[in-house]
């Protein structure tokens, strides 16, 4: 099946999912963005008060928190949704020839729409609360492209692994929870002091920084670019290997 077919299928499928989310609550995915706004305000107030002695400016802290959470929600929802939808997909793949590559792509397109809404809210909020430039630097687009490519490859590998090993969705969800606490999202990254190297070996940190840094008007560190290009190569190779292994075996895993 060619890439254009997978692309067209995934775009329509993402639209199906977005329409489904509109049926229940009318405002659909906008609710997710509003929830993020609420979480940022609540966590910002709580941790901003706790960290008061150690942060330079409350405004900068809440902006960094919001940008970090936007990146984290994009990252975690893309991977998590690819894994948790497996029970429905394993039923479908028994009788329909749907390319597995379309499953994470449709999920990623849906998460991308949420990201887009979150970014609009973020830019409006920062324009109102700070004097920052509402235009994003060009590095944001490159960072977003690299993050999306990484997420697609990781989600593809996770989807195939979850089709084979049915207890993996819970483990991946647990890993993402640990990642949330170990990554400087709620707490500022300088808190680690001499243990700063822990951030440098944390893949979640580098992936988040790909869009958080430009959102905060900072350049993406060179180490971050190199790290994320390396993770992309590893994930892509892993994806190709998994695809090769699964082609003949997938029907037996369902």
């Amino acid at each position, binding site marked *: *099946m*060619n890439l254009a*077919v997978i692309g*067209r*299928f995934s775009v*329509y*499928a993402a639209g*199906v*999912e977005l329409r*489904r989310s509109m049926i229940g609550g009318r405002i659909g995915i906008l609710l997710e963005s509003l929830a993020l706004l609420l979480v940022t305000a609540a966590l910002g107030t709580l941790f901003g008060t706790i960290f008061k002695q150690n942060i330079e400016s409350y405004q900068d802290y809440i902006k960094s928190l919001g940008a970090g959470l936007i990146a984290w929600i994009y990252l975690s929802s893309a991977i998590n949704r690819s894994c948790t*939808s497996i029970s*429905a*997909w394993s*039923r*479908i793949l*028994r*009788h*329909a*020839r*749907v390319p597995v590559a379309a499953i994470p792509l*449709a999920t990623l397109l849906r998460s991308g729409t949420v990201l887009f809404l979150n970014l609009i809210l973020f830019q409006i909020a920062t324009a109102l609360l700070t004097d920052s430039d509402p235009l994003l630097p060009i590095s944001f687009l490159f960072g977003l492209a690299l993050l999306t490519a990484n997420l697609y490859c990781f989600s593809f590998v996770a989807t195939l*692994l979850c089709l084979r*090993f*049915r*207890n*993996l969705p819970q*483990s991946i969800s647990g890993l993402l929870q640990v990642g949330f606490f170990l990554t400087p999202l709620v707490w500022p990254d300088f808190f680690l002091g001499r243990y700063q190297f822990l951030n440098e070996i944390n893949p979640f940190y580098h992936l988040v920084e790909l869009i958080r840094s430009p959102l905060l008007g900072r350049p993406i560190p060179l180490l971050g670019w190199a790290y994320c290009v390396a993770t992309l190569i590893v994930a892509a190779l892993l994806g190709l290997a998994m695809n090769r292994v699964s*082609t*003949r*075996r997938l*029907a*037996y*895993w369902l």
Partner: protein
Amino acid sequence: MSLIALQNVWVEYPLFGAWNRSFTRSMMPQGRKNAGAAPANGRMITALRDVTLTIAAGERLAVLGSNGSGKTSLVRVLAGLVAPSRGSIRIDGQPSAILSLGCEVYPDATIFETIVLRGLLSGKSRRDSIVLAEKVIEFSELSKVSGQPIGALSSGLVFRLGIGLAIFLGSDIVLLDEVVDTADPNFVTKVKKQFLEKLMPNIVLVIVERSQAIMEDICTRAIILDNGQIVAAGSYREIAEISRGRYTY
């Protein structure tokens, strides 16, 4: 011209259970032994054994056999859903499988959306897929339920939708697995008149059904599967006679 040719095809399924579905257990030394596609402890089932079969355009094949004889596995191999473990398969044409398992292609999609997605999967553009959906819904008389989730469809409606898709996607290999029995007889007559009689000379049709009345009406050839092997093959009348009383459906 459409053609299906199977040469010494074997299909062997590893049996999956809690012991080899768990990632953590599979990582353990003992678990690894059981985790692969060919477990060391022999937990494999053979669904098809050394099947050699050729079906040319214009032939309508009935697949007979008792429960667990490998009928559905054969249809899944012909539909390209399962790759044979051994042997070779040649499929010339576009298969359209209508299986009792359903015809969902995306979780929670409606019937209309499912047809559009099927059209997109077959390589059509979005606009052509929407036109396809309108035609299928009209032919299959599904306009009242087109907004319902596909998962809620009864097997009779699955047949209607599947046959509509097979007609308008121009499939030249049609595989029916236990869906005709559940359909409304008036609709089956409509399908026979408008689809099968016109297109039969150019398509390959494979039917697995419980009701022999339907197959008697349509099929020219038949095979009997027993324990994954073809034990008898010939004209439909001849094979139906052999199978009567010997196999339960």
